């Protein structure tokens, strides 16, 4: 499935982070070489898509330098042989860090949160029991939250932009299920400042991209704002400097 949301892209350049499209790459390569003498993590995927954003938010939290290599989903670049070598399921994102390659956004964020455990905020908890709660809520997001949000955004935003009608009955059914899921989150967040405990972790971070799409393009913000503790949690996590940097990068 992959959870790919893609909208019309624009070229954005920010200091240290060069946003390349392959067809226009010749001019930009010289800039990259001068900017980045050291190896940086390459993140393959459009900066606007939710799953790449999950990885970028984590790298920004950990202050890890990266380079975004754009993948044009509208033109099916992710299904071309060159990309399938990198990610055989034809999904974004994938990373390349020197010789090391990885895909699946939630595997990538776990990797970097562990690799740079000593740097920046602790995104994995202090004990094994806290780490397991981080994993629990990452799994909840993956299995209970993501599919519903993805379906709603696909039907409300992506298909109409491609000139196809969205299935509103399906949206309504997903919305009802998501209400029940969010009631459980509301209960959790009334007892705990963040999902896995008293500190911000990957469990919260993983919800950022999808929730933003839900509230903005899909115009389903009431699902968040009508729930007191979820609303406070959203205000908090979406105000983090790393997330704000990503929003700038994505020109949102």
């Amino acid at each position, binding site marked *: *499935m992959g959870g790919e949301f893609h909208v019309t892209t624009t070229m954005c350049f920010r200091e240290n982070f060069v946003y390349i499209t392959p067809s226009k790459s010749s001019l930009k390569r010289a800039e990259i070489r001068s900017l980045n003498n050291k190896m940086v993590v390459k993140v393959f995927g459009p900066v606007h898509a939710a799953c790449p954003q999950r990885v970028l938010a984590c790298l920004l939290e950990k202050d890890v330098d990266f380079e975004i290599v754009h993948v044009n989903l509208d033109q099916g670049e992710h299904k071309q042989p060159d990309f399938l070598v990198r990610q055989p*399921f034809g999904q974004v994102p994938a990373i390349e860090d020197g010789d*090391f390659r990885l895909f*699946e956004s939630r595997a990538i964020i*776990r*990797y970097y949160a562990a690799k740079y455990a000593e740097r920046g905020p602790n995104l994995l908890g202090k004990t094994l029991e806290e780490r*397991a709660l981080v*994993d629990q809520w990452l799994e*909840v997001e993956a299995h209970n939250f993501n599919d519903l949000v993805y379906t709603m955004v696909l039907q409300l935003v992506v298909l109409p932009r491609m000139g196809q009608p969205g299935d509103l009955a399906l949206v309504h059914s997903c919305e009802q299920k998501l209400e029940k*899921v969010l009631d459980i989150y509301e209960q959790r967040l009334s007892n705990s400042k963040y999902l896995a405990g008293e500190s911000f972790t990957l469990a919260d971070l993983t919800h950022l991209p999808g929730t933003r799409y839900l509230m903005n393009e899909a115009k389903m913000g009431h699902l968040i704002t009508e729930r007191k503790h979820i609303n406070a949690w959203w205000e908090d996590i979406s105000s983090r400097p790393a997330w704000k940097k990503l929003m700038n990068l994505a020109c949102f």
Partner: protein
Amino acid sequence: MVVKVYGPAYASPKRVMVCLAEKGIEFETVTVDLIKGEHRNPEYLKLQPFGALPVIQDGDYTLYESRAIIRYYAEKYKSQGTDLLGKTIEERGVVEQWLEVEAHNFHPPIYDMTVHILFASKLGFPSDEKLIKESEEKLGKVLDIYEKRLSESKYLGGDFFSLADLSHLPFTQYLVGPMGKEYMIRDRKNVSRWWNEISNRPSWKKIMQF
């Protein structure tokens, strides 16, 4: 005090039980009858508010989501039993990658097939033949990718048995057994070889009996 695992008759709890068996960790089971709707009882929902199986209790500690539980025990008992995570952060990263592949690419179609082929009549709704057919096609495409991976790598996560392989055991057992679709595994040479190896492990032979 031993670990309590809820719902041993079903596949996702078995994901946890086979991990505990690989690590040599004792456990007890607590029956939860899905057909009777026991996963929706208030007492169960206090432990697992989404009403899904499994949940574990380890003394005062409660944890749910099988793939979170197996990560916890694999790390906590790293030096005991089989090493299911790899020796370096990079090895673990690759294990995590294929565990996520199982969760996002393998699990959805095989889960739909399981519900509609094995459980629909018991749960009182008509099985959706179109969904079954589409799911089998999707699963076939995933297994084709596994076939290539397993032609280059002994196990999914690398050259060692890991959580990435283990996670596939319970639902694949449903596929080759009661669903009658063993051909999906046997038609693929490397997937077949891999399935033979992982399903013949003593831990799985013990847990599949529950």
